[in-house]
């Protein structure tokens, strides 16, 4: 009986995971290997490919447009992640206060998450319009937010932080709410004020959630595409100053048709994300507190 049950279980195990595993093999594992192969190939006529070794990578490393895109992606990270995560933490703490109408605020701050980034970008593009946009009108300036090469990425970063701050705050809020009240009570008895409590209790106890949010934001900003694609169209004079790696990937693969070269770009991006994530995982030992 026991044995039959086990044999039965085995068969059922394969049946249950079968569709997903088959799907992942076809939709992800094969494409992953194929992208590596493509990155070592050149596109020929009639959809044929020819093995060219590391030629695509050599072309890539010799391209100023590629280095500019890499720099833009990293710079976009620097502009969005620290400010965005800090604001999200601040917002989470405010939303954790014992006040009326908290759920209305929560609903409002979360709003950008449920609308398509394409639509969000379009609205901001209009507000940032240099001639008729409301932002220049309110500020009394004539700043070329979207077409000035030295400002465009900053503009995109503002929109990105606006879009993600509520979502990150909700994640951090659930981390803060999991902290046991008894810690704060004990600290109050010991005479610790709210600011001291924040740094000695809240920050260490929420640090695992903070780490998750940080990693998620880093990965998302390194592969940013839709926001910049919608804000900065391909005729924009500031295109090369805003173009992220994934934007360049899209243009090379699906507009210019250089699938081999584009594959090299995406492999490079994955390596970049891998390195940044690894640094974070090494660095976390210094500040993330996993003791509960």
């Amino acid at each position: 009986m026991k044995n039959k049950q086990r044999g039965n279980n085995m068969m059922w195990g394969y049946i249950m995971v079968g569709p997903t595993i088959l799907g992942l093999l076809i939709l992800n594992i094969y494409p992953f290997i194929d992208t590596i192969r493509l990155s070592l190939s050149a596109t020929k006529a009639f959809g044929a490919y020819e093995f060219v070794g590391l030629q695509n990578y050599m072309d890539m490393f010799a391209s100023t447009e590629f280095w500019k895109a890499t720099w833009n992606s990293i710079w976009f990270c620097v502009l969005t992640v620290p400010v965005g995560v800090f604001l999200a933490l601040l917002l989470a703490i405010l939303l954790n206060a014992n006040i009326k109408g908290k759920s209305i605020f929560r609903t409002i701050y979360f709003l950008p998450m449920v609308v398509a980034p394409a639509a969000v970008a379009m609205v901001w593009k209009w507000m940032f319009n240099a001639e008729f946009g409301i932002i220049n009108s309110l500020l009394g300036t004539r700043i070329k937010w979207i077409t000035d090469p030295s400002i465009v990425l900053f503009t995109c970063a503002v929109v990105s932080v606006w879009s993600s701050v509520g979502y990150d705050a909700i994640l951090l809020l659930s981390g803060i709410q999991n902290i046991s009240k008894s810690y704060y009570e004990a600290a109050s008895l010991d005479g610790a004020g709210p600011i001291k409590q924040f740094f000695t209790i809240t920050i260490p106890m929420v640090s695992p959630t903070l780490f998750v949010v940080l990693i998620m934001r880093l990965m998302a900003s390194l592969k940013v595409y839709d926001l910049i694609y919608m804000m900065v169209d391909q005729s924009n004079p500031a295109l090369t100053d805003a173009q992220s790696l994934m934007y360049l990937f899209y243009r090379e693969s699906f507009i210019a048709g250089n699938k081999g070269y584009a594959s090299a770009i995406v492999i490079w991006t994955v390596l970049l994300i891998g390195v940044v994530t690894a640094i974070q995982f090494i660095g976390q030992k210094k500040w993330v507190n996993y003791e509960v």
Partner: protein
Amino acid sequence: MTIKKSSSNILTYVVLGAGAILMLFPFVWMVLTAFKSNFEAMQIPPTILPSQWNLDAFKKAMDSLPFANLYINTALLIFFRIICAVVFSSMAGYGFAKLAFPGKNLLFGIVLIQMMLPSQIFIIPQYQMLASMGLTNTIFALVFPGLVSAFGTFFLRQAYLGIPDEISEAAYLDGCNTWQAFVKVMFPLTTAASAALAVFTAVFAYGDLMWPLIANTDLTMMTLASGLSTLNGQFTTNFPVLMAGSLLAMAPMLVLYMIFQRQFIEGVAMTGGK
């Protein structure tokens, strides 16, 4: 003490309120602009309310984009993505959490690898497969990369791991086989997690831009997001039309969010970390 507390409460309200205005303003401005004439939208200084609420921009947006198709395509994309994600991920999540079979760790490794790699690394070969089957510009093309979900599998595996073994053993004693125990007993216990996965899948499918842009290039087969991006190129300077288009694209999700806001926030917060 109470005075100090209420003054800090007032400060909290002021900061949260100012932030809320910043969050809402773009939506308000979108609506106000959508009802203005193009001439009025470009006035300096700008008018706040439209001097005349007119629907010209909506007409123009609907003339140049087949919104009925976009709504249907997006709805079908979301529907099939949710069905696939919930059904296949529940099965696999249950299998990985509760059943023993050789090679389980190796197969779960495949799930983890997919989760760690950004989706763009799969996109060229996925497109080439689709093109070689002659299936571009179909609903299937939109659903294709989301037929199975590694994230959903990982997430629901966690949900099944949280259910004690005694429950499925009781079902076996009552004469259920593995499939019956899964469908009748275990699956109903994960409805909260499945609902969270459904919300996450819907929000992601609705917002995704690169894949629909690549897979379906016929205007009638686009999603709201990819359709909107073509409007962006067509009406670069007619802002009321662009705002009307954005509003039309946002509207269904905004309405759903108003009704199910708690489920949205909890669902997305539960699946957070991806």
